[in-house]
Protein backbone atom coordinates (compact mmCIF):
# COMPACT_ATOMS: atom_id res chain seq x y z
CA UNK A 1 0.00 0.00 0.00
CA UNK A 2 1.39 3.38 -0.96
CA UNK A 3 1.27 6.58 1.07
CA UNK A 4 -1.91 8.33 2.11
CA UNK A 5 -1.41 11.13 -0.44
CA UNK A 6 -1.27 8.65 -3.31
CA UNK A 7 -4.28 6.77 -2.05
CA UNK A 8 -6.41 9.88 -1.66
CA UNK A 9 -5.42 11.16 -5.10
CA UNK A 10 -6.22 7.80 -6.63
CA UNK A 11 -9.61 7.84 -4.95
CA UNK A 12 -10.38 11.21 -6.53
CA UNK A 13 -8.94 10.41 -9.95
CA UNK A 14 -10.89 7.21 -10.39
CA UNK A 15 -14.07 9.25 -10.86
CA UNK A 16 -12.60 11.10 -13.85
CA UNK A 17 -11.19 7.93 -15.36
CA UNK A 18 -14.60 6.29 -15.05
CA UNK A 19 -16.35 9.24 -16.69
CA UNK A 20 -13.86 9.30 -19.55
CA UNK A 21 -14.17 5.56 -20.06
CA UNK A 22 -17.96 5.75 -20.10
CA UNK A 23 -17.77 8.66 -22.57
CA UNK A 24 -15.58 6.61 -24.91
CA UNK A 25 -18.01 3.71 -24.72
CA UNK A 26 -21.10 5.89 -25.21
CA UNK A 27 -19.71 7.63 -28.29
CA UNK A 28 -18.32 4.47 -29.85
CA UNK A 29 -20.37 4.80 -33.03
CA UNK A 30 -19.36 8.43 -33.60
CA UNK A 31 -15.78 8.95 -32.50
CA UNK A 32 -12.73 6.72 -32.27
CA UNK A 33 -13.40 4.30 -29.46
CA UNK A 34 -16.07 1.88 -28.47
CA UNK A 35 -16.61 -0.92 -26.03
CA UNK A 36 -13.12 -2.35 -25.90
CA UNK A 37 -11.30 0.95 -25.79
CA UNK A 38 -13.58 2.49 -23.17
CA UNK A 39 -13.42 -0.69 -21.14
CA UNK A 40 -9.64 -0.63 -21.31
CA UNK A 41 -9.65 2.99 -20.06
CA UNK A 42 -11.78 2.00 -17.08
CA UNK A 43 -9.54 -0.97 -16.36
CA UNK A 44 -6.53 1.38 -16.36
CA UNK A 45 -8.31 3.01 -13.42
CA UNK A 46 -8.52 -0.39 -11.76
CA UNK A 47 -4.79 -0.82 -12.33
CA UNK A 48 -4.21 2.55 -10.67
CA UNK A 49 -6.16 1.40 -7.62
CA UNK A 50 -4.17 -1.82 -7.69
CA UNK A 51 -0.93 0.16 -7.48
CA UNK A 52 -2.16 2.64 -4.90
CA UNK A 53 -3.69 0.07 -2.60
CA UNK A 54 -2.73 -3.55 -3.03
CA UNK A 55 -4.22 -6.65 -4.52
CA UNK A 56 -5.53 -8.04 -1.25
CA UNK A 57 -7.35 -4.81 -0.43
CA UNK A 58 -8.89 -4.63 -3.87
CA UNK A 59 -9.95 -8.25 -3.79
CA UNK A 60 -12.34 -7.41 -0.99
CA UNK A 61 -14.39 -5.12 -3.20
CA UNK A 62 -13.92 -6.84 -6.59
CA UNK A 63 -14.91 -10.47 -6.15
CA UNK A 64 -14.01 -12.96 -8.85
CA UNK A 65 -17.47 -14.55 -8.91
CA UNK A 66 -19.02 -11.12 -9.37
CA UNK A 67 -16.65 -10.28 -12.22
CA UNK A 68 -17.37 -13.61 -13.85
CA UNK A 69 -21.13 -13.00 -13.74
CA UNK A 70 -20.65 -9.47 -15.07
CA UNK A 71 -18.53 -10.75 -17.95
CA UNK A 72 -21.05 -13.40 -18.91
CA UNK A 73 -23.86 -10.87 -18.69
CA UNK A 74 -22.07 -8.56 -21.10
CA UNK A 75 -21.46 -11.37 -23.55
CA UNK A 76 -25.07 -12.52 -23.29
CA UNK A 77 -26.42 -9.01 -23.91
CA UNK A 78 -24.24 -8.84 -27.02
CA UNK A 79 -25.49 -12.22 -28.21
CA UNK A 80 -29.09 -11.27 -27.42
CA UNK A 81 -28.77 -8.12 -29.54
CA UNK A 82 -27.35 -10.21 -32.35
CA UNK A 83 -30.20 -12.70 -31.94
CA UNK A 84 -32.73 -9.85 -31.99
CA UNK A 85 -32.40 -9.69 -35.76
CA UNK A 86 -32.78 -13.41 -36.25
CA UNK A 87 -36.18 -12.96 -37.90
CA UNK A 88 -34.30 -11.59 -40.92
CA UNK A 89 -30.65 -12.48 -40.34
CA UNK A 90 -28.29 -12.78 -37.41
CA UNK A 91 -26.82 -9.35 -36.53
CA UNK A 92 -29.57 -7.62 -38.53
CA UNK A 93 -29.95 -4.10 -37.19
CA UNK A 94 -33.51 -4.11 -35.83
CA UNK A 95 -33.46 -0.62 -34.34
CA UNK A 96 -32.98 1.30 -37.58
CA UNK A 97 -35.87 3.70 -38.05
CA UNK A 98 -37.08 3.53 -34.45
CA UNK A 99 -36.68 6.52 -32.09
CA UNK A 100 -34.12 4.63 -29.97
CA UNK A 101 -30.76 5.04 -31.72
CA UNK A 102 -32.63 4.76 -34.98
CA UNK A 103 -31.87 8.09 -36.69
CA UNK A 104 -30.27 7.80 -40.08
CA UNK A 105 -27.10 9.91 -40.04
CA UNK A 106 -26.59 12.39 -42.88
CA UNK A 107 -23.96 11.30 -45.38
CA UNK A 108 -20.73 13.25 -45.46
CA UNK A 109 -19.21 15.44 -42.79
CA UNK A 110 -21.63 16.07 -39.92
CA UNK A 111 -21.49 17.20 -36.31
CA UNK A 112 -22.54 13.79 -35.02
CA UNK A 113 -25.80 12.51 -33.59
CA UNK A 114 -25.73 10.18 -30.61
CA UNK A 115 -29.09 8.64 -31.49
CA UNK A 116 -27.74 6.77 -34.50
CA UNK A 117 -26.32 3.37 -35.12
CA UNK A 118 -29.21 1.11 -34.13
CA UNK A 119 -27.99 -1.79 -32.06
CA UNK A 120 -24.34 -0.78 -32.43
CA UNK A 121 -24.20 1.58 -29.40
CA UNK A 122 -26.00 -1.01 -27.28
CA UNK A 123 -23.49 -3.62 -28.39
CA UNK A 124 -20.72 -1.20 -27.43
CA UNK A 125 -22.15 -1.08 -23.92
CA UNK A 126 -22.34 -4.87 -23.79
CA UNK A 127 -18.73 -5.18 -24.94
CA UNK A 128 -17.74 -2.46 -22.46
CA UNK A 129 -19.25 -4.40 -19.57
CA UNK A 130 -17.53 -7.57 -20.70
CA UNK A 131 -14.14 -5.96 -21.19
CA UNK A 132 -14.22 -4.15 -17.84
CA UNK A 133 -15.05 -7.38 -16.05
CA UNK A 134 -12.71 -9.58 -18.06
CA UNK A 135 -9.64 -7.35 -18.01
CA UNK A 136 -10.09 -6.46 -14.32
CA UNK A 137 -10.21 -10.17 -13.54
CA UNK A 138 -7.02 -10.72 -15.56
CA UNK A 139 -5.17 -7.83 -13.93
CA UNK A 140 -6.33 -8.77 -10.45
CA UNK A 141 -5.49 -12.43 -10.94
CA UNK A 142 -1.99 -11.59 -12.10
CA UNK A 143 -1.42 -9.19 -9.20
CA UNK A 144 -2.60 -11.80 -6.72
CA UNK A 145 -0.57 -14.42 -8.51
CA UNK A 146 2.67 -12.50 -8.25
CA UNK A 147 2.05 -11.75 -4.58
CA UNK A 148 1.80 -15.49 -4.08
CA UNK A 149 -1.94 -15.92 -3.67
CA UNK A 150 -4.59 -17.56 -5.78
CA UNK A 151 -7.96 -16.22 -6.82
CA UNK A 152 -10.76 -17.97 -4.99
CA UNK A 153 -12.51 -20.61 -7.04
Amino acid at each position, binding site marked *: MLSKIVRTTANQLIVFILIFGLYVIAHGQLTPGGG*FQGGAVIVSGVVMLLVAFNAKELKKSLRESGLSIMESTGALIFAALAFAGIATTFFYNVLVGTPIFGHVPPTGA*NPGDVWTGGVVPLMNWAVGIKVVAGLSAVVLAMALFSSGEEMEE
Partner: protein
Amino acid sequence: MDYMPLNFPFLAAALLIGIAFFIIIFKRNLIKLIMGIAMMASGVNLFLVALGYRVGGNAPIYTNVPPGPMVLPVPQALTLTSIVISVAVLALMLTMVIRIYRHTGSLDSEKSRRMKG
Protein backbone atom coordinates in the same frame (compact mmCIF):
# COMPACT_ATOMS: atom_id res chain seq x y z
CA MET B 1 -3.02 2.42 -55.53
CA ASP B 2 -0.95 5.05 -53.71
CA TYR B 3 0.72 3.73 -50.68
CA MET B 4 2.82 5.92 -48.50
CA PRO B 5 5.98 7.17 -50.22
CA LEU B 6 9.17 5.19 -49.70
CA ASN B 7 7.36 2.24 -48.11
CA PHE B 8 8.91 2.98 -44.75
CA PRO B 9 6.09 1.47 -42.69
CA PHE B 10 6.35 -1.78 -44.63
CA LEU B 11 10.10 -1.97 -44.10
CA ALA B 12 9.60 -1.32 -40.39
CA ALA B 13 6.93 -4.03 -40.23
CA ALA B 14 9.18 -6.52 -42.02
CA LEU B 15 12.05 -5.65 -39.67
CA LEU B 16 9.86 -6.09 -36.59
CA ILE B 17 8.56 -9.43 -37.81
CA GLY B 18 12.08 -10.58 -38.71
CA ILE B 19 13.50 -9.67 -35.31
CA ALA B 20 10.51 -11.30 -33.65
CA PHE B 21 11.12 -14.56 -35.53
CA PHE B 22 14.75 -14.46 -34.48
CA ILE B 23 13.75 -13.98 -30.84
CA ILE B 24 11.13 -16.72 -30.91
CA ILE B 25 13.50 -19.26 -32.42
CA PHE B 26 16.75 -18.51 -30.61
CA LYS B 27 15.96 -17.04 -27.20
CA ARG B 28 15.68 -19.42 -24.29
CA ASN B 29 14.13 -17.13 -21.72
CA LEU B 30 10.36 -17.59 -21.70
CA ILE B 31 9.63 -13.93 -20.95
CA LYS B 32 11.77 -12.92 -23.94
CA LEU B 33 9.84 -15.44 -26.02
CA ILE B 34 6.60 -13.74 -25.03
CA MET B 35 8.14 -10.37 -25.90
CA GLY B 36 9.02 -11.80 -29.29
CA ILE B 37 5.42 -12.78 -29.89
CA ALA B 38 4.24 -9.35 -28.80
CA MET B 39 6.70 -7.80 -31.25
CA MET B 40 5.48 -10.04 -34.02
CA ALA B 41 1.90 -8.99 -33.28
CA SER B 42 2.93 -5.33 -33.42
CA GLY B 43 4.72 -5.93 -36.70
CA VAL B 44 1.65 -7.49 -38.27
CA ASN B 45 -0.55 -4.72 -36.88
CA LEU B 46 1.76 -2.07 -38.29
CA PHE B 47 1.63 -3.81 -41.63
CA LEU B 48 -2.18 -3.82 -41.59
CA VAL B 49 -2.49 -0.17 -40.62
CA ALA B 50 0.09 0.86 -43.21
CA LEU B 51 -1.92 -1.01 -45.83
CA GLY B 52 -4.93 1.18 -45.32
CA TYR B 53 -3.05 4.47 -45.27
CA ARG B 54 -3.69 6.98 -48.02
CA VAL B 55 -1.51 10.07 -48.36
CA GLY B 56 -3.07 12.95 -46.46
CA GLY B 57 -6.03 10.85 -45.38
CA ASN B 58 -8.28 11.59 -42.42
CA ALA B 59 -9.55 9.12 -39.86
CA PRO B 60 -12.52 7.30 -41.42
CA ILE B 61 -15.10 8.90 -39.13
CA TYR B 62 -17.69 11.32 -40.41
CA THR B 63 -18.13 13.32 -37.19
CA ASN B 64 -16.65 16.80 -37.74
CA VAL B 65 -14.46 15.56 -40.54
CA PRO B 66 -12.50 18.09 -42.60
CA PRO B 67 -12.83 17.59 -46.35
CA GLY B 68 -10.29 15.35 -48.05
CA PRO B 69 -9.56 11.67 -48.57
CA MET B 70 -9.98 9.10 -45.83
CA VAL B 71 -7.83 6.14 -44.90
CA LEU B 72 -9.35 2.67 -45.29
CA PRO B 73 -11.39 1.65 -42.26
CA VAL B 74 -11.29 -2.12 -42.77
CA PRO B 75 -7.57 -2.65 -41.95
CA GLN B 76 -8.09 -0.59 -38.80
CA ALA B 77 -10.95 -2.85 -37.76
CA LEU B 78 -8.73 -5.86 -38.43
CA THR B 79 -5.93 -4.35 -36.36
CA LEU B 80 -8.27 -3.66 -33.48
CA THR B 81 -9.53 -7.24 -33.47
CA SER B 82 -6.00 -8.52 -33.66
CA ILE B 83 -4.97 -6.31 -30.73
CA VAL B 84 -7.84 -7.66 -28.64
CA ILE B 85 -6.82 -11.21 -29.49
CA SER B 86 -3.17 -10.64 -28.68
CA VAL B 87 -4.15 -9.16 -25.30
CA ALA B 88 -5.89 -12.42 -24.50
CA VAL B 89 -3.04 -14.57 -25.81
CA LEU B 90 -0.35 -12.62 -23.97
CA ALA B 91 -2.29 -12.65 -20.71
CA LEU B 92 -2.73 -16.41 -20.98
CA MET B 93 0.94 -16.95 -21.81
CA LEU B 94 2.11 -14.81 -18.89
CA THR B 95 -0.12 -16.73 -16.51
CA MET B 96 1.36 -19.98 -17.74
CA VAL B 97 4.90 -18.66 -17.38
CA ILE B 98 4.18 -17.67 -13.78
CA ARG B 99 2.93 -21.20 -13.14
CA ILE B 100 5.95 -22.75 -14.89
CA TYR B 101 8.23 -20.56 -12.79
CA ARG B 102 6.51 -21.75 -9.63
CA HIS B 103 6.92 -25.38 -10.57
CA THR B 104 10.48 -25.30 -11.85
CA GLY B 105 11.97 -22.18 -10.32
CA SER B 106 13.42 -21.17 -13.66
CA LEU B 107 12.51 -19.25 -16.77
CA ASP B 108 14.97 -21.07 -18.97
CA SER B 109 13.20 -23.12 -21.58
CA GLU B 110 16.04 -25.65 -21.70
CA LYS B 111 15.88 -26.32 -17.98
CA SER B 112 12.13 -26.55 -17.75
CA ARG B 113 11.78 -29.09 -20.52
CA ARG B 114 11.45 -32.28 -18.56
CA MET B 115 9.41 -34.06 -21.16
CA LYS B 116 12.07 -34.92 -23.71
CA GLY B 117 11.76 -37.93 -25.98
